[in-house]
């Protein structure tokens, strides 16, 4: 058996079509929209603001709080019960860990920066889409950052190492599948999220990470462009703001 062709004809090292926008939620201090294939994430940043209860405060620097949530109608099958689940709590936690290395919150003792990630539609890769949106929202909020964080899943479907698995690939039944969500800091070349489930050999795993490193710069450019575009639009130069493909 061999996995020869992807559903949408993309190459094994290609991610799905990406659309990104910054400043999509007016009330927020920073916000972003990130769509990859049929997975859509919104992220909103509120803060730095005072943190209660007070025992959670850190007197030396601000803290980052992330909250990942799927809207009840955003699952591919049945309705997702609203409210936190074990899964969403874990994803919120790893998202926070993925973002914290690029953030400098030393100027905001006792404060909190809240990041709310909401999924309106999912087809795998939702935590990575959430991280991409969140890092753009943090930048949009004007927080001091060393870099953006860019994220995509890589993995293996049957005999092929691939980038950005969709749900059908994650559910592939005729061979081994591995799904490896990754977050990456382009300027340092470091990984800040790494999870895996599935079965993969050591060599293939390293190959997958290498493939991820190659795909990341293209995602990174889309994120940066969207952040800049907000200001192009602001000046009324709408015709100049091209869509990210």
């Amino acid at each position: 058996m061999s996995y020869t062709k992807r559903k949408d004809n993309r190459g094994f090292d290609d991610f799905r079509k990406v659309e990104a926008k910054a400043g999509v939620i007016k009330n927020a201090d920073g916000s972003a929209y990130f769509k990859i294939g049929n997975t859509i994430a919104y992220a909103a940043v509120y803060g730095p603001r005072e943190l209660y209860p007070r025992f959670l405060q850190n007197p030396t620097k601000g803290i980052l709080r992330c909250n990942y949530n799927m809207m009840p109608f955003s699952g591919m099958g049945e309705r997702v019960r609203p409210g936190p689940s074990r899964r969403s709590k874990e994803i919120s936690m790893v998202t926070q860990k993925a973002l914290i290395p690029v953030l400098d919150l030393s100027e905001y003792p006792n404060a909190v920066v809240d990041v709310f990630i909401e999924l309106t539609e999912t087809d795998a890769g939702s935590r990575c889409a959430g991280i991409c949106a969140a890092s753009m929202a943090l930048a949009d909020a004007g927080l001091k950052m060393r870099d953006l964080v860019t994220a995509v899943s890589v993995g293996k479907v049957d005999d092929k190492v691939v980038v950005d698995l969709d749900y059908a690939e994650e559910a592939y039944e005729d061979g081994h599948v591995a799904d490896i969500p990754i977050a990456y800091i382009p300027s340092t070349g470091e990984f800040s999220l790494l999870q895996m489930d599935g079965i993969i050999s050591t060599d293939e795993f390293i190959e997958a990470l290498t493939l991820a490193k190659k795909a990341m710069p293209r995602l990174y450019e889309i994120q940066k462009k969207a952040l800049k575009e907000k200001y192009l639009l602001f000046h009324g130069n709408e015709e100049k703001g091209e869509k990210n493909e």
Partner: protein
Amino acid sequence: MSNDQKQHMIKSFKQGVRFDERGLEDFRKLTISCKPSKTAEGSAVVKLGDTEVIAGIKMMVGTPFPDRPEDGVIMVNAEFLPLASPDFESGPPGIDSIELSRVVDRGIRESHAMDLKKLCIKKGEKVWIVSIDICTLNDDGNLLDAAALAALAALKSTRFPGYDGEEVNYKELTDDKLPLAQEPIPVTVYKAGDVFFVDPTKEEQKNVDARLTITSLGDGNLCAMQKGGEQPFTLDEISKIVDLATKRSKDLRKEIDKL
């Protein structure tokens, strides 16, 4: 907002001046986009000025209530996501989102907007359960009207998933639409001091003394109401509110009819 600001707002409103230069009886720009979420069987985003709400419909097969063995089930739930406002907090639904979902629910249920009998698959055993979930994206006032419009638009865009008698196939939607017989449209009229107005921004809404939501149908009949706020109304005021609400609902209905 302080009391001074409130008095200032009321004084301006009496001269017909609003913060965003609208008339007291004008809505903000309404845009409705259908099917923003492909995982939902129906969905819609409604924007009223800077207020933005998304509603999604999920269809499931389940058992009917024992006292209504032939009726399908509809459920309305609203989430005031902390993403949408610094005033919303994570956690179980607060009283505002519960009230909103119940008002939207009554508008749909009491108008018999949906023929629940048509959602029956096998009497007493299997019926369709229609979950209407409303999530806020940005709160700039008048969430109630925006939410109810989003719910209605989402219901209109819904297609049944496949069903073979055993399992629901969410991957392929059929061409069958929900049995929508009525389209309940809500208009909330707000009162501050002795002025009446519709569709407040968040800033305006902070100064509201009372509100009355009137949900009406295409034939002019009324199907659900909810009074809110701490001030009472006189009969004359209520009659004035009903007139204003039914007038505005005709404009909103035109937008819903376009879908």
